[in-house]
């Protein structure tokens, strides 16, 4: 039988008609749609039990309390801990996306030497050689931790220097260290008890200090109040976030903060608003007015305004002796609601601002902010979890990433009382990482290990019996039965908060301070190429107009 073209056509028509009453077209239509709902190249979150654990954020020295949702052995969500009296349940925008940082494309996964992949053993050998030749300088970004003690001990033993890269909050307290002898790290702003704050451009609501501290304070005592209990007078060249929310915004010229402080002191003294004081600024009110762009009357009025609701405190964003002197004149130093002593420790730290020349090697701990980079002839051993792109020609050593190391957290910068907390590690690094402390301890075990120091600190804390433990409940230290119990609470996310320091703080200001050089001068000016941000935080810059872009970073 011959098959004709006609037969084929008829057959196809029959097949097509028949196919309609089979599952073929309909099931394929349905399944293809389902396929499009579950595209295999779209990642799916892990399934499994979700556990909630507590830890603390180690992105910066503030150590905000973290509530970590864990699934499949990984942190999958972060939120603040409301019972934490320091961070008060808040996190910064960076913190909310920090659990993704460990997979950042710029995560440092290998030891790098002069841009080439190297190994830990080579790094150790190179460092051992350098340390023996000496001298070495160790730079810490977050003093007061157990790990810091290891760094400090090592530096002491090996005849090197231990330097601290202070944050701007601590740097703003440095003038008082000069005038009172109390280290800046033992000082704090008693914001909780102040009623008027004169901010000389300090971004109080925009990343200054602990994210949960001032914003919460402001929200409770100032926000949307016609007559706020906390008055913020913000002197800022432009309408910054803080200025936009301040009780009063003074539009001053860029860089005229010191002049404004001097003018205010003149105005205060002139109008007898404060007791007479020895150190009087050279500049007159009208000179200050010229420099700031405000009228002399406005400065006088401002002086009256700020003393109207004491206590009053002046805050500068960074090292600024004139603003500090204003505080001295206002009597805010050592007073409630002013500059207070957070601890009676008198140990001073040398700032990295000091010269680090004629040094064989520099070790930079991973706690040092990303924008610090050494411009030195020394061999630099930079510990970092993320490759910021600097330190070319030096060693880049992969440090534990976010929540990958257990560490303790001491008093945040400029916080008025001592605190102590522990950040438990919840994530496991998938490649070899080392902290600077561990790296140094490998060379010289006598410097101690962070674990033993942490343990002994807890013991010390338990023995002191002072302060309160803020965990699931608020427990006075007197009710803690043992070091073990204390440690357990701390590892479960509790924060120890000490009592107010009773030690005296007095400043003597003999003469008006001269204009100060920038504290970042010297060998520490070369910034990293771009900050490494949690990808979701970079969304803020890339996908909204909320903030100016710091470069397209993921």
């Amino acid at each position, binding site marked *: 039988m011959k098959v004709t073209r006609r037969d084929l056509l008829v057959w196809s028509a*029959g097949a097509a008609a028949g196919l309609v009453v089979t599952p073929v077209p309909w099931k394929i239509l349905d399944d293809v749609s389902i396929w499009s709902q579950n595209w295999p190249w779209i990642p799916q979150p892990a399934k499994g*039990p979700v556990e909630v654990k507590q830890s603390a954020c180690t992105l910066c020295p503030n150590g905000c309390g973290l509530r970590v949702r864990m699934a499949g052995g990984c942190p999958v969500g972060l939120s603040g801990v409301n019972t934490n009296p320091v961070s008060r349940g808040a996190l910064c925008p960076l913190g909310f996306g920090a659990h993704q940082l460990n997979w950042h494309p710029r995560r440092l996964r290998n030891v790098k030497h002069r841009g080439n992949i190297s190994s830990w053993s080579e790094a150790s050998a190179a460092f051992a050689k350098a340390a023996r030749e000496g001298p070495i300088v160790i730079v810490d970004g977050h003093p007061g931790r157990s790990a810091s003690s290891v760094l400090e001990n090592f530096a002491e033993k090996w005849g090197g220097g231990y330097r601290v890269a202070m944050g701007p909050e601590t740097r703003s307290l440095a003038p008082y260290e000069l005038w009172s002898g109390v280290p800046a790290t033992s000082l704090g702003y008693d914001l909780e008890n102040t009623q008027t704050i004169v901010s000389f451009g300090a971004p109080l609501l925009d990343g200054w200090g602990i994210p949960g501290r001032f914003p919460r304070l402001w929200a409770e005592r100032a926000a949307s109040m016609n007559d706020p209990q906390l008055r913020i007078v913000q002197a800022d060249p432009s309408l910054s976030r803080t200025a936009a929310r301040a009780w009063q915004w003074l539009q001053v010229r860029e860089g005229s903060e010191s002049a404004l402080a001097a003018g205010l002191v003149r105005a205060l003294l002139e109008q007898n608003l404060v007791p007479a004081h020895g150190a009087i600024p050279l500049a007159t009110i009208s000179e200050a007015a010229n420099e700031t762009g405000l009228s002399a009357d406005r400065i006088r009025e401002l002086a009256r305004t700020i003393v109207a609701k004491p206590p009053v405190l002046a805050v500068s964003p960074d090292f600024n002796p004139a603003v500090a002197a204003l505080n001295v004149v206002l009597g805010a130093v050592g007073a409630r609601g002013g500059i207070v002593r957070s601890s009676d420790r008198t140990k001073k730290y040398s700032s990295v601002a000091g010269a680090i020349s004629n040094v064989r090697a520099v070790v930079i701990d991973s706690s040092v902010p990303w924008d610090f980079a050494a411009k030195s002839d020394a061999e630099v051993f930079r510990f970092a979890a993320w490759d910021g792109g600097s330190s070319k020609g030096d060693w880049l050593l992969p440090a534990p990433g976010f929540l990958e190391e257990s560490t303790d957290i001491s008093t945040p910068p400029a916080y008025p009382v001592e605190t102590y907390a522990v950040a438990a590690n919840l994530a496991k690094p998938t490649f070899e990482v080392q902290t600077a402390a561990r790296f140094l301890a490998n060379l010289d075990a006598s410097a101690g290990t962070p674990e033993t120091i942490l343990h002994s600190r807890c013991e010390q804390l338990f023995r002191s019996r002072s302060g309160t433990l803020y965990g699931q409940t608020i427990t006075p230290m007197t009710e803690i039965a043992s070091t073990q119990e204390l440690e357990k609470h701390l590892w479960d996310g509790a924060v120890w908060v000490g009592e107010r320091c009773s030690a005296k703080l007095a400043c003597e200001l003999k003469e008006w301070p001269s204009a100060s050089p920038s504290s970042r001068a010297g060998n520490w000016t070369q910034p990293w190429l771009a900050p490494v941000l949690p990808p979701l935080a970079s969304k803020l810059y890339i996908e909204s107009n909320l903030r100016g872009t710091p470069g397209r970073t993921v």
Partner: protein
Amino acid sequence: MSRNTLVFAFGVSFALCVGWIVFPRALYVQKRQPLTFLHKTHAEKSGIADCGECHTLRADGSFAGLPAMEKCTGCHSEKIGDSQAEATLVNNYIKPGTETPWLVYSRQPANVWFSHAIHVKLAGLACSECHSTYGESDQVRTYELNRISGYSRDIWGHSMSRLRRAPHEGMKMSDCESCHQRHQVEVGCLGCHE
């Protein structure tokens, strides 16, 4: 004319054969479970009567699904019987400490949020109302995987036409809906979707 009719009829029947016999076989990949786990044997020998003893609800209400290996290890840390399946379990999974890669017949996709707690604790549904009597079966079913959608065949149901289904057959959205309609429980889209 009659030749045309014949050829047409041949075309129709060819399509019907392909559609109803060849296509379902081609669409699904037959897969075997890694272990011959028999619910009936376990129920009889260990006296476990309640599904919830192994398929537990966690404290937060989430469903643990298939028991983790430690549940098996409770009895099978060493070989206690003489079946080949048990030997496989002990040697391949318990000793190396790896979880058994079970193929879950009723696994819903990631976009479905199904709470056993709500259906069991609040609505009081028996396990068998959705999972039939698999808990009493004495054999291991073949797992059939849809090549296109990646779903288990249990979602669509064994019947390709879905017209003559057993009462518990099928776990498509329309099956959820019809049960919800029967019980007059109204839920919005995101009530069951993630």
